[in-house]
């Protein structure tokens, strides 16, 4: 696995100093066209070259842009005006975005250049990128293994060096889990930090857009460009920008109180556990204080998630009806048949399963027992984190119980697939930021990632801890 020849920060520095954006955009387009992992579903070479010329002209005119000339891959659930966006679902076949997602628009205004859309699990529902209507994505180190999901294509795009920067969305770990399994950095910001306007919705109280990159510095750079209130998304917050990363990443670790849940170790494969133990030792020798903490309700997180996320999905996905966009079934005799047949033909089996589950937990007679109960346990999980962050500054933990698993291993048993998300879901339920950073390799040379959580709006602290860990691990 070789990363893109330059980081986003380095590319921006070169282009801002007067070097043309075009050569590295061409390099990215070449790599995208030669990809063998099925990471990408739609290429935008012509648009990218036009945008590169625009960036060059802006620099010549005296502007300085934080992401000047940076090739960018975006997940297939993010709209880019004039380009297709299908969330890797047959039901959105042929859809052309009439506007650009705010997060993408801000990156483009800062000089980034969209080169392609990335493969993903259909409607972001999956943890292995095997539910895409465009076929599975292969792990860049081993084509018999999965890259993780649902932002599998975005993670592979960065890991395999197709581009230095990618966007994903994280509803229950969909940025961090593939980042961890592919050995790249992935950041899920605080809920409300980045506008979701133009993101095809899955679970609206959980979804956040975030960056994937090879370094924490690049992820931070993209975050600060995307962050902030957007009138088009009423859940986006008016908050001060996160503070810049410290110049010396190790400095952030001195005196930092790093929490950990001792019980996590028992749930990990031996090779993942070894990396977690090594990271704790490295943090301690860098001057951090390790603090044992508890998350007593974490064991309920998966149940809470699969009630709330499916309930929200059942509601969000009711807009796909074969009338205004996407696929319409042939031969339907009345409007009801248009809806039902278009949806039956257009949605894959995992999406239909989640819609039915969500419909079940929201239906009369079951709402209080399932949906309301899950909302109450969500409150308990939020309280758990409040107690944790009274005792420590950030929380260190695993991302996945194992390294990248084999394709097909969990597809026949949805519950087994869901259970592998145990360590990532709580951040979404609590709305808090979490960053995935590479932490070495496990068996077969497969990447192991670890994550830091922090309280809401501590995105800068979480990223600083991630940069510190990367530095002490030699990353």
């Amino acid at each position, binding site marked *: 696995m070789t990363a893109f020849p330059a980081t986003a920060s380095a590319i921006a520095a070169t282009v801002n100093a007067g070097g043309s954006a075009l050569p590295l955009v061409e390099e990215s387009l070449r790599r995208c066209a030669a990809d063998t992992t099925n990471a990408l579903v739609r290429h935008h070479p012509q648009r990218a070259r036009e945008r590169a010329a625009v960036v060059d002209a802006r620099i010549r005119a005296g502007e300085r842009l934080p992401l000047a000339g940076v090739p960018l891959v975006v997940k297939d659930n993010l709209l880019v005006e004039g380009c297709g966006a299908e969330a890797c679902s047959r039901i959105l076949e*042929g859809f*052309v975005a*009439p506007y650009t997602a705010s997060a993408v628009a801000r990156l483009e205004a800062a000089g980034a250049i969209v080169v392609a859309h990335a493969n993903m699990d259909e409607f972001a529902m999956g943890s292995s990128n095997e539910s895409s209507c465009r076929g599975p994505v292969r792990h860049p180190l081993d084509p018999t293994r999965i890259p993780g999901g649902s932002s599998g294509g975005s993670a592979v795009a960065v890991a395999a060096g197709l581009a230095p920067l990618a966007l994903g969305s994280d509803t229950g770990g969909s940025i961090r889990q593939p980042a961890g399994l592919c050995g790249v950095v992935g950041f899920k910001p605080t*809920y*409300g930090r980045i506008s979701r306007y133009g993101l095809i919705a899955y679970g609206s*109280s*959980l979804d956040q857009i975030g960056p994937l990159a090879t370094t924490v510095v690049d992820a931070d750079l993209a975050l600060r460009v995307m962050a902030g209130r957007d*009138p088009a998304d*009423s*859940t986006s*917050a008016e908050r001060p920008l996160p503070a810049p990363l410290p110049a010396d990443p190790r400095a952030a670790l001195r005196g930092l109180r790093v929490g950990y849940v001792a019980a996590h170790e028992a749930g990990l494969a031996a090779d993942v556990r070894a990396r977690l133990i090594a990271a704790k030792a490295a943090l301690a020798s860098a001057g951090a204080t390790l603090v044992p903490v508890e998350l007593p*309700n974490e064991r*309920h997180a*998966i*149940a*809470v998630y*699969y*009630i709330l996320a499916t309930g929200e999905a*059942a509601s969000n996905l*009711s807009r796909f*009806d074969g*009338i*205004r*966009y*996407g*696929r*319409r079934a042939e031969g339907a*005799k*009345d*409007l009801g*048949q248009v*809806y*039902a*047949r278009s*949806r*039956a033909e257009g*949605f894959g089996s995992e999406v*239909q*399963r989640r*819609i*039915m*589950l969500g*419909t*079940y937990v929201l239906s009369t007679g079951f709402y209080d*027992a*399932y949906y*309301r*109960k*899950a*909302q*109450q*346990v*969500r*409150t*308990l999980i*939020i309280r758990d984190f409040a107690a944790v962050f009274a005792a420590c500054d950030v929380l260190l933990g695993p991302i996945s119980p194992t390294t990248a698993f084999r394709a097909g291993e969990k597809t026949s048993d*949805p*519950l087994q697939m*869901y259970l592998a998300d145990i360590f990532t879901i709580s951040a979404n339920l609590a*709305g808090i930021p979490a960053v995935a950073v590479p932490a070495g390799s496990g068996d077969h040379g497969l990447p192991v990632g670890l994550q830091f959580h922090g309280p809401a709006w501590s995105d800068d602290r979480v990223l600083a801890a991630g940069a510190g860990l990367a530095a002490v691990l030699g990353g």
Partner: protein
Amino acid sequence: MTITAADVRHLARLASLDPDPAELERIAAKLDTIVDYVRQLQAVDTTGVEPAVDMSGMVGVTRPDVPGPLLDRATLLANAPAHSDAAFLVPKVVER
């Protein structure tokens, strides 16, 4: 077994889905496994615990009541499987 083939038929109707009748038992079995798992929450004591219903902490967000540009009608209609110059076309809804 909490979820039966008949339940799946009912859920499919509520959700405007049209599953293959031959698949109903299989779909029911997979849903049942998941519902059985999430039922663990019934055992959690949530007496007096408020449900978390809003993650943004912002309620009643409104924009200024000022007219502004909307998306172009022709562009939006172009995504529809069937449309006229001014409307989405659907099959006849009312029989005479």
